[in-house]
């Protein structure tokens, strides 16, 4: 009888141990970024699997947004990239309340000076000038800094007779800089025009999302316009259109596939094939097969 109690006591004690193990495990510091939910299919994905798959959902193929730095590392040959004009920062022509502070905070947080990285590098040995926009900095919006860096990148490319590849991700013109942002559309367009007139190649890669004043300027000025699958691409925002026409929009409106069907995108390329595709286009424009 006493053995029986002892047995039970042991079991209780073991159970306690197991319980406390579980509790301890739960309380153990699990990195909170270990799991990611796909915002397309809602599946929970293991972050390492996701990053091994170039941040494309392993279940549904949804292309997650990338930072400029991630994009750069995925695109340009290792150790060939030289950033240019990294120190350029924007202006505050409206003295818009809180704007300067917001930008300073984002500079610390993102380690970017503004919403684009520009520079020179190689894709499988072919040199090009690059622009990588970043949605983590005020939704990749274009103010004076983005406009200036792009204009300088195109001028550099024109001077050195190099092709330009720009990866776009942007909510459009940056409201906080008012009319100065609008004028960046004209400024960059001028730099693109000069580059184009010099007979040089410009490729845009539209990624999710590319809208507003960026769509209405350099995003749509490429000789070749590529898009990632599923990217939202448009001029006006969906909400603005719905408010204007007082009806909801059809499924798939303003996706890369929609634009491709309407004739505004040359090719939709999956992320895993992007480097190869870009290299193929660059190579072909060199005019010598071997």
């Amino acid at each position, binding site marked *: 009888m006493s053995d029986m109690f002892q047995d039970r006591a042991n079991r209780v004690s073991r159970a306690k141990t197991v319980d406390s193990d579980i509790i301890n495990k739960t309380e153990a510091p699990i990195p909170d970024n270990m799991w990611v939910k796909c915002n397309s299919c809602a599946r929970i994905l293991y972050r390492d699997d996701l990053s091994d798959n170039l941040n494309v959902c392993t279940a549904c193929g949804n292309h997650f947004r990338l930072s400029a730095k991630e994009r750069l590392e995925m695109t340009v040959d290792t150790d060939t990239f030289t950033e240019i004009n990294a120190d350029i920062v924007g202006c505050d022509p409206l003295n818009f309340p809180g704007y300067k502070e917001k930008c300073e905070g984002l500079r610390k947080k993102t380690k970017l000076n503004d919403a684009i990285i520009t520079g020179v590098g190689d894709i499988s040995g072919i040199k090009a000038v690059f622009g990588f926009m970043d949605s983590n900095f005020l939704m990749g919006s274009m103010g004076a800094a983005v406009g200036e860096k792009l204009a300088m990148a195109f001028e550099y490319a024109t001077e050195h007779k190099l092709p330009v590849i720009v990866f776009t991700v942007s909510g459009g013109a940056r409201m906080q800089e008012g*009319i100065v*942002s609008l004028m960046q559309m004209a400024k960059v*367009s*001028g730099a693109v*025009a000069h580059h184009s007139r010099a007979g040089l190649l410009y490729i845009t890669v539209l990624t999710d999302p590319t809208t507003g004043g960026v769509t*209405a300027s350099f995003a*749509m000025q490429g000789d070749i316009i590529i898009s990632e699958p599923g990217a939202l691409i448009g*001029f006006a925002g969906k909400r603005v259109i719905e408010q*204007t026409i007082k009806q909801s929009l059809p499924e798939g*409106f303003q996706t890369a596939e929609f634009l491709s069907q309407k004739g505004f995108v040359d090719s939709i390329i999956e992320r895993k094939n992007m480097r190869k595709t870009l290299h193929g286009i660059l190579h072909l424009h060199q005019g010598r097969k071997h």
Partner: protein
Amino acid sequence: MTTAWDRVLIARSILRPTSKFFIEQIFDGFIELKGDRNYADDAAIIGGIAWLGETAVTVIAEEKGADVPEKVARNFGCPHPEGYRKSLRLMEQAEKFNRPIVCLVDTQGAYCGIGAEERGQGHAIATNLERMMTLTVPIISIVIGEGGSGGALALAVADKVAMLENAIYSILSPEGFSSILWKDSSRAKEAAEVMKITANDLMGLGIIDDIIKEPVGGAQNGPEQVAETMKKYLLSNFEMLSKIETSKLLDERYQKYRRIK
């Protein structure tokens, strides 16, 4: 003291003269040329050829319409992609025949709708911005009422950009601006004061070159007089621009936008 919001109201006033009136007053023998040769004619933009004094010119103008039926027919001056493509077609024709180009800007913005997206509103504007930078004939753009965002800029890459005294020119309507940045479209009045949208503000920022005077209270109080001032402005500036060698003209056009930072 006229506030920015006062000017928004003047610029939008139903009494304010629109492009059609100015075309009749400023030019002789205007011949309208329609269509983008691709999809349709867009009545929100009037295009054509005419005499400016002794000079043949191409005229491209956003038109809101004078009364309600005309406003509806002209989509309240909000162009579709075919409007910008018609403009580009006529501008390239102007280049071919060596005619200076006059653009009159008056729009809340490029239209936001299903058809506009399907036919590539962004692409149409982008193409104009790029191409206007290299057109080898002089271009003068005058913002006569509302200069709304990319829909205005697509006719305002020019050698000279002027504004009528009470016109506004902005990245977005004050309503849209306050809605996006303050989540409250009722603060439009406050937004108008912050946004620097008046002719004086934009002269100060170096965005525009000249301001064309209006009678006290607005252009509706003396529309013929405003048209006369615009005509003089166009005549004297085209005379000046026509003396500049093409490569220099294009370089100065680029630098005009290039230096904005």
